[in-house]
């Protein structure tokens, strides 16, 4: 058996901090859904993609603790993510998705 780690203040945030993060995520989700009903014109797509990216980064950084953890974990995860983005951008370009 190993010793449990008790109450490490460095490990992430306080519970109130997590609730605040969740409230921000819920608010962004509300804005995302609102774009479906409100005509934003040319801003529609960039606004949705930015909100999606912000939510992604918030969850990964705060809930998954990448912001507080060793940078090697960030490198490992973002390497996979960036590799996927490159590979599938090439894949979609090959099928003329962007044209």
């Amino acid at each position, binding site marked *: 058996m*190993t*010793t*449990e*780690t*008790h*109450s*490490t203040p*460095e*490990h*992430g945030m306080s*519970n109130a901090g*997590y*609730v605040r*993060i*969740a409230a921000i*995520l*819920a608010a962004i*989700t509300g804005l*995302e*859904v609102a*774009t*479906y009903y409100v005509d934003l014109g040319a801003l529609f*797509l960039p606004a*949705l*993609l930015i*909100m*999606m990216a912000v*939510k*992604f980064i918030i*969850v*990964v950084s*705060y*809930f*998954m603790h990448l912001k*507080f*953890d*060793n*940078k*090697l*974990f960030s490198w*490992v*995860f*973002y*390497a*996979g*993510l960036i*590799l*996927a*983005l490159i*590979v*599938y951008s090439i*894949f*979609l370009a090959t*099928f003329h*998705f962007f044209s």
Partner: protein
Amino acid sequence: MTSDSHTDGGAHSSTGLSNNKLGMWLFLGSECLLFGGLISTYMLYRGRVGAGPRPSQVFDIPFTSVSSFVLLMSSLTMVLAVSAAHKGDDRNTYLWVTVTALLGATFVGGQVYEFTAFYHEGMGFTTSLFSSSFFVLTGFHGVHVTVGIIMLMSIVGIMKRSKVPGSKAETVEMIGLYWHFVDVVWIIIFTLIYLIPA
């Protein structure tokens, strides 16, 4: 920046970090490639509806928004479970892990309802390239959520029998990482598949 992960027990690599945690992050990095492939395939085929219904004809945005909100809140309860586990607070760890599993089950139930509604509206698995790629993508995600629920319920049972090998907190944290990843994948799916019209 802190590197507290090496204080959480479990086997450690030459970097001083937990092998379990490093392995989980490697797994999640590889999962980006799996879901990237499924999402790209859907994006390519979403306009290929054939004789079947178009996405805008079948998608129920208010319903899916509520499901997305439920899954998002399950990330909050999961992180509260991890926090309680690190404090050695077993009672709250059980509570939040169970609440997370229930929220996950609600999401999966909503997905089953949605799939059934789509089927009754004439959108079966083989109706069109759009429907096939949609069901494969969202189905794979649903299977991931289901596996997460099984892991959550299992860890409650294992913890109650005090048979967790290694650090309890790290074990809960590993399941938490998987659960949050499933949530971030849904964040992408909800925007790209549901909110952006084909």
